[in-house]
């Protein structure tokens, strides 16, 4: 799990699809505050947040990468709007379901014929690791966004004019 920040302006957006409250982007290209470009690919974004991610949107973008999902979970615009939504919630539920089903399967097989199904054990381990990653990812994404709450206030301060 990692989080990162991009300060800049969205120059170009290439959306792959948007449905079920989730938008998936092929790529998003940013012009960063230092003048350089940075492109992020295969980004998963909740629809509420995706509505604010338009070409020309400028401010601070909060990104996460966990397990096999990368995305944008927060955006604070230069004009003071603030958006937060972590898009990995569905995967967390999926891992809980996968873990529960496979744990039940392993217990059932052990009780019925005494054999331990290796695929069931493998999927259970995967579910546990996946759940830990996704829930940790959600916590870290939220913490990153909350701890940076001063960003909007900082940009709204009037610039000191020289002389």
């Amino acid at each position, binding site marked *: 799990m*990692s989080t990162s920040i991009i300060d800049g302006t969205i120059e170009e957006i290439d959306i792959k699809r948007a449905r079920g409250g989730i938008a998936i982007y092929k*790529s998003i290209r940013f012009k960063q505050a230092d003048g350089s470009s*940075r492109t992020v690919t295969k980004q998963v974004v909740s629809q509420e947040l995706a509505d604010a991610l338009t070409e020309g949107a400028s401010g601070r973008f909060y*990104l996460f990468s966990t397990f*096999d999902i*990368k995305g944008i979970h927060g955006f604070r615009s230069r004009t003071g709007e603030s958006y937060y939504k972590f898009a990995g919630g569905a995967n967390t539920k999926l891992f809980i379901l996968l873990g529960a089903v496979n744990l039940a399967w392993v217990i059932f097989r052990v009780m019925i014929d005494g054999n331990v199904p290796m695929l069931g*054990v*493998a*999927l259970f*381990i995967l579910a546990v690791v996946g759940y830990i990653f996704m829930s940790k990812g959600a916590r870290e994404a939220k913490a990153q966004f909350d701890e940076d709450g001063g960003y909007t206030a900082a940009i709204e301060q009037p610039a000191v004019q020289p002389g």
Partner: protein
Amino acid sequence: MATGSDTQAGLGLYDLRGTGAWSQGLLCAQAAICALAVTIALLAGPGFMDEASGSMPYALVSLGQAVIFIAGAIVFLRWTYCASANVHRIGAQGLGPSPGWAVGWYFVPIACLGMPFVAMKEIWKASIEPRDWEIVKSTPLLGWWWTFWIFSNLTGLVAFRLESEETSTEVMSYVETLTIVSDATFVPASLLLAAIVGRITVRQSVYLPGE
């Protein structure tokens, strides 16, 4: 295994040249011994894996394969950790697996079929252009390595499962064929990985102080 030069240097980067050279050497040795195992198996003919009347040279080569595989895996995983740590330290942002997980994914069932490949692809891209690594074009070497690696492992796994459940002549014939196929595909997998390790090592060495 002491590699001598995978110590941190300058900005906290690992110098991969020592570990990389060891890893490449062991991967090439692995390719050579797998090729030898295939040759011996084909020359010995059916029954070469038989416990009582099987080929003694094949049994010795199999032991050698196991030893080189374990040594190679330890050095390669060490190299993977250091290479991943380096791309984090030279400023690549938004990377998926941490250095620990670049190694750890090899041991998680099911996820090991894809996540180590993702980690290696990110290391490759971020070694070339850390600041904007996601737009860097990957190399076909990675895809071919992973295809051969997965195919070799799956055929080897099927052979192992068949052998442990049933030892009839017919089943053993399948087991021997699958074992030869597994060893044969391990040769290009090892050589491709050696090439990948070499190129990433060279690429990352430009970030070391004094280079």
